[in-house]
């Protein structure tokens, strides 16, 4: 009997000495979905992924990954997961073709179908021209496509991708996500960590990690609807002075500048957040257009990662 979830983690923790990299993480990743893992550097994303594929032993807690218990014997799990490391981990002194060939041998891919599968991947991931180029001389985007091709070669039902797009340009990132959607449609469960908001928004569901603790999870829409904050957008000719007027003002939880606009978060308990903002701006003689808006994922991120003190203003 197989569970509806590809990954289920219960109170997963990992401590390195005094550093609590991950604490008490609960996760449920439904099969066939793209599950995002959003968090700043050092929030425990990589550590979690490494625990889920059996590379690190959890200090506390357990997980079920593709019906395999973690911690436990992860030998039978390895052939069924594809893992893409944060750092390029293929062999730089071997060609694109040789790398794919090596991976096909290591995963004991049926011998008769190897050549066909490699050809298919080269074409699908746009690497035909680089077939006999040394992997170490590829561009960032090409390396990433090769890494993805290698991690999906053996048709794993679960893909774990650790910040796969941290070293590539925006166009490559878009293409990369198109590939991920294609894989998800074919039934692959994908867990992907990122610190890009736009990528997080593309996921079916996501969890936000902060200093090793999960601070929110749900679909992007659910998260945007439940920040517990009002979002007010301020458009001012002089955003610098507007920010000065609002910073540390009463009820202001946070101010983020985006060009000439400011995004201001205020507690949901306020009846009229626009009036509060207008009052502060007038007091400093700043003219601006103020209106309430829906929260973006970045607002969610700012709201859930701020500490309790800031929230209670």
């Amino acid at each position, binding site marked *: 009997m197989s569970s509806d979830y590809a990954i289920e983690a219960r109170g997963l923790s990992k401590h390195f000495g005094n550093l609590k990299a991950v604490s008490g993480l609960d996760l449920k990743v439904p099969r066939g979905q793209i599950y995002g893992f959003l968090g700043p550097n050092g929030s425990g994303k990589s550590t979690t992924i490494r625990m889920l594929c059996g590379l690190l032993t959890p200090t506390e807690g357990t997980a079920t990954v593709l019906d395999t218990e973690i911690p436990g014997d992860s030998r039978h799990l390895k052939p069924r997961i594809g893992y893409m*490391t944060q750092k390029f*981990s293929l062999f730089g002194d071997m060609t694109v073709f040789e790398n794919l060939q090596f991976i096909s041998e*290591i995963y004991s891919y049926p011998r008769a179908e190897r050549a066909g599968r490699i050809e298919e991947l080269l074409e699908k991931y746009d690497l035909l021209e680089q077939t006999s180029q040394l992997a170490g001389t590829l561009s960032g985007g090409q390396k990433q496509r090769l890494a993805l091709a290698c991690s999906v070669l053996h048709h794993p039902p679960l893909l774990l991708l650790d910040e796969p797009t941290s070293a590539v340009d925006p166009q490559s990132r878009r293409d990369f996500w198109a590939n991920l959607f294609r894989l998800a449609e074919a039934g692959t469960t994908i867990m992907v960590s990122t610190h890009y908001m736009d990528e997080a928004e593309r996921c079916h569901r996501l969890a936000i990690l902060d200093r090793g603790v999960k601070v929110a999870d749900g679909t992007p829409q659910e998260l945007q609807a439940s920040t517990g904050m009002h979002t007010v957008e301020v458009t001012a000719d002089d955003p610098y002075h507007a920010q000065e007027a609002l910073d540390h003002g009463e009820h202001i939880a946070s101010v983020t500048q985006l060009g000439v606009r400011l995004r201001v978060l205020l507690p949901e308990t306020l009846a009229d957040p626009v009036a509060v903002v207008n009052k502060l701006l007038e007091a400093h003689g700043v003219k601006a257009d103020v209106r309430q808006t829906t929260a973006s994922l970045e607002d969610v991120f700012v709201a859930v990662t701020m500490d309790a003190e800031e929230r209670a203003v």
Partner: protein
Amino acid sequence: MKSLSRLLAITKKEVRQLRRDRLTFGMIVGIPVMQMLLFGYAINTDVRNLRTAVADQANTHLSRQFVAALRETQVVDIVDFVDTPIEIDARLRRGDVSVGVVIPADFDRRVVDPDRPAVHLIVDGSDPTIANVALQLRNFPIAFDTGARQTRVNNIEVRPNYNPERRTPVNIIPGLMGVILTLTMMLFTAVAIVRERERGNLELLINTPVSSAELMVGKVIPYIVIGMIQLALILFVGDALFQVPMRGSVLDLYLASGAFIAANLALGLVISTVAKTQFQAMQMTFFVLLPSILLSGFVFPFDGMPRVAQYIGEVLPVTHYIRLTRGIMLRDAPLIELYPELIALGVFTLIAMTAAALRFTKRLD
């Protein structure tokens, strides 16, 4: 079946990478040839052409004949004739000469008098190898004096078995084989695995179905072959340049070398599980290499070493290997007679392999 094909995949990859790594590839051939030339030509414990001063106070027909005979041995290179022994002392002190020959005025009478030394030989005792001169000149039918001690005429004939010409390369090269294989085998394996860790390849590899044993054995196989190639190269150069004899069975030598290579590869694997960077792996290799050169009987006679040094030497695989190579190559000893050394190598390999397998886990923590 799957396991074997995964193992071969690792081996194939290793060979492929090795072929592209020109520097390492060059070292496979370069290290043995360089070391052999260095040790074979430069490091020579034969005492020859020692700068010598002669004080011939007799200056008779017989004494001149003696000096000519001395010169013919090529052990001494007579660079100076002086009048008195005092002048010889001064030259020795300044380091101008290493040997002084004093022929007393009554040389002709002393030669026939068995109670008195006919010639005094004064040698520079600050250099231990020069003391060999005493041994080399033993055959001379004349008494001589080394420093304070007087030696009587004794027509002892020294017959060095197995190396009658007493040529250094003949003694050095069987030992050198051990030192070269220790260096290259240990270094290559240790670096090969640590490099993958450094480059991040290992994180990818341990996430695949490859087992630790497949990974280790697969990586080590190419180096066993390389070790055998190096061995053939050493034997060829040893024969072509230094006429090192191969008196025993070549098969025995290869079997013994196989056991020795296995021991070194196992040690290299242990290093690779401890070292975090290639630099650390290299430092640890040299940590083992130095005693391998000094305490294995390669440079200094094993029996002459202090007890503690002998114990350390017994732990090193190269000590046992040098006994095997000298036995097989120079004394024509069958491998079966040298079995204690083979057992020692086997036990070492077993312990090192176990340690490596225990330390190498397919985890990052």
